[in-house]
């Protein structure tokens, strides 16, 4: 099969270069190979590379494909990107929004404010075209490489076949200079929803198909729509069964129309037909230009298992959701956040290999939560029967006048990080009166600290956090140096980490999730909890 581009590039970021691996007489073995250079693959390479773990990334193109695609990036994603050192350009470029309005026909039934809580470094959401998100990640990789991070991005390197062994994987790769073979101790599959790797391995990917088509039109226009998310059910302008308007950087607006199931795809993608829908929505006086258009359908599904021995799947390759709720790319980045430190500890011999099974368990839990939420949103937006349509419109009618109906309106439940409740790495909550939001398994909420923020001081490695009490600055446990951080409680830290308790000690994982918490420091209890959280229990 020729190595032709399947899509046009928005940015050429990793042009093909001949690697010495291609001239080796016996295949070169690498600790980690990542397949797929999308946001999830590049973030994985960055996470591992910043830990000093040599990683090779293979992609069959030389950069980022065109099209805005994922546009809503959540606070948690920005916090993770901040840990990687690339959140600032995303924040600078992105559009911050908080207000959402929901319309039915020609009337507003409801509006919501994401009500940003004070004292966080990052906003609840930014809108940013996916190519920019990927470019900022790759630029950070280049910076890290310059500082010595052992990351290699190999463009125009297409994985053609794999041979999976108990303790390594053999990969056959095509390049413009012909094929070559390499080996990997670990192979991470980040090659997207239609994952060729998953197919090569003959693995399942089952779930629910939604019988509906959506038209995306990205346009630039001079119009004074506010920076808000506007969603219409059965819009009066009849451009679709539902419609969405959302602002992106560069004066670009994302418009989404629900077209129904039985459509003529080719016909609908004709410019005059797209313009007809847009004109009806925007009125005759608005000048606009089409930037990117696409028709998509979607499914909600996941692999039964994300880990298959030495091959681990992440992002869309492992799970796929409908776009309502922005739970695709955001959950993929949480996969990376979860996998990176675990793979790091296994590779350097600190943790047993079974720690990687907790990636499987925790991220399947996350995927199930995302699939549940996005399926419910989809069912509300596109009712599947007459009676569900009747109920949906009854909710919308009532929501305009009665607050009780508003929580039932579902135009997308926006991505929040999942809490790993009752999963094996957690130690039972031992902080009486502690806030529920920081219970074991939860991601640490940010809070102001000194001139900066708490999360700036957490993550990357295990941290013992003393709130309103003093913990040792560092001590050795389980062959690891545990870093201690003692903070005095301010209003936000008090609300988020103490609740009714007077002081607290938190054991925090490298991905900023709480592993355990107590009222006071007890070296023995920390030792046991840490062992458990690295799979030694």
């Amino acid at each position: 099969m020729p190595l032709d581009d399947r899509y046009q590039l928005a940015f050429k970021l990793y042009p093909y270069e001949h690697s010495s691996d291609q001239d080796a007489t016996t295949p070169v073995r690498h600790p980690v190979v990542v397949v797929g250079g999308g946001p999830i693959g590049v973030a994985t390479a960055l996470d591992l590379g910043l830990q000093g773990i040599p990683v090779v990334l293979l992609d069959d193109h030389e950069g980022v494909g065109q099209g805005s695609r994922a546009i809503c990036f959540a606070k948690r994603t920005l916090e993770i990107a901040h840990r990687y050192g690339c959140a600032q350009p995303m924040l600078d470029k992105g559009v911050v929004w908080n207000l959402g309005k929901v319309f039915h026909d020609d009337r507003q039934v409801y509006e919501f404010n994401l009500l940003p809580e004070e004292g966080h470094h990052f906003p609840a959401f930014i809108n940013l075209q996916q190519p920019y998100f990927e470019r900022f990640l790759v630029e950070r990789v280049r910076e890290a490489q310059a500082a010595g991070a052992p990351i290699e991005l190999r463009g125009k390197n297409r994985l053609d076949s794999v041979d999976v062994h108990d303790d390594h994987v053999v990969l056959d790769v095509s390049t413009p200079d012909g094929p070559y073979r390499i080996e990997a101790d670990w192979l991470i599959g980040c090659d997207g929803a239609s994952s060729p790797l998953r197919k090569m391995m003959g693995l399942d990917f089952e779930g629910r198909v939604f019988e509906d088509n959506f038209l995306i039109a990205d346009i630039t226009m001079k119009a004074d729509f506010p920076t808000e998310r506007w969603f219409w059910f059965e819009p009066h302008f009849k451009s679709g069964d539902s419609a969405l308007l959302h602002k992106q950087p560069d004066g670009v607006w994302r418009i989404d129309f629900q077209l129904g199931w039985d459509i003529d795809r080719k016909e609908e993608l004709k410019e005059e037909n797209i313009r007809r829908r847009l004109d009806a929505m925007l009125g005759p006086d608005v000048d606009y230009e089409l930037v990117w258009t696409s028709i998509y359908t979607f499914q909600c599904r996941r692999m039964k298992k994300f880990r298959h021995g030495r091959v681990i799947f992440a992002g869309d390759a492992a799970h796929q959701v409908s776009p309502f709720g922005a739970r695709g790319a955001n959950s993929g980045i949480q996969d990376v956040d979860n996998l990176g430190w675990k793979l790091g500890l296994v590779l350097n011999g600190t943790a047993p290999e079974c720690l990687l099974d907790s990636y499987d368990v925790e991220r399947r839990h996350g995927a199930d939560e995302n699939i549940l939420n996005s399926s419910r949103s989809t069912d509300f937006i596109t009712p599947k029967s007459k009676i569900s349509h009747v109920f949906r419109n009854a909710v919308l009618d009532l929501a305009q006048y009665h607050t009780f109906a508003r929580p039932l309106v579902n135009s997308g439940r926006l991505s929040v990080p999942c809490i790993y409740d009752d999963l094996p790495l957690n130690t039972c909550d031992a902080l009486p009166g502690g806030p529920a939001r920081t219970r074991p398994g939860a991601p640490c909420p940010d809070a102001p600290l000194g001139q900066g923020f708490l999360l700036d001081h957490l993550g990357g490695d295990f941290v013992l956090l003393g709130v309103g009490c003093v913990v040792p600055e560092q001590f050795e446990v389980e062959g690891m140096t545990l870093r201690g951080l003692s903070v005095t409680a301010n209003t936000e830290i008090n609300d988020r980490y103490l609740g009714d308790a007077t002081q607290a000690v938190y054991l925090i994982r490298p991905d900023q999730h709480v592993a355990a918490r107590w009222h006071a420091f007890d070296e023995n209890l920390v030792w046991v909890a840490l062992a458990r959280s690295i799979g030694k229990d």
Partner: protein
Amino acid sequence: MALNTSPNIPDPDGFYAELLEAHGGLSDDDSIALNARLILILANHIGDRAVLSEALAVAATGETR
């Protein structure tokens, strides 16, 4: 007691999904009958005549705005 029109159902998305699941696969007539039974069961649970009258009035105007 007055009719409560403030949010009062924990896990609203879960409730809504369960409500629609109950209708899954039913014909229109069977769905109408299920709704009727459900209204009567809930009305009995509420019990308060004044609240029921108020709910009927709200439902009637909610339809027509």
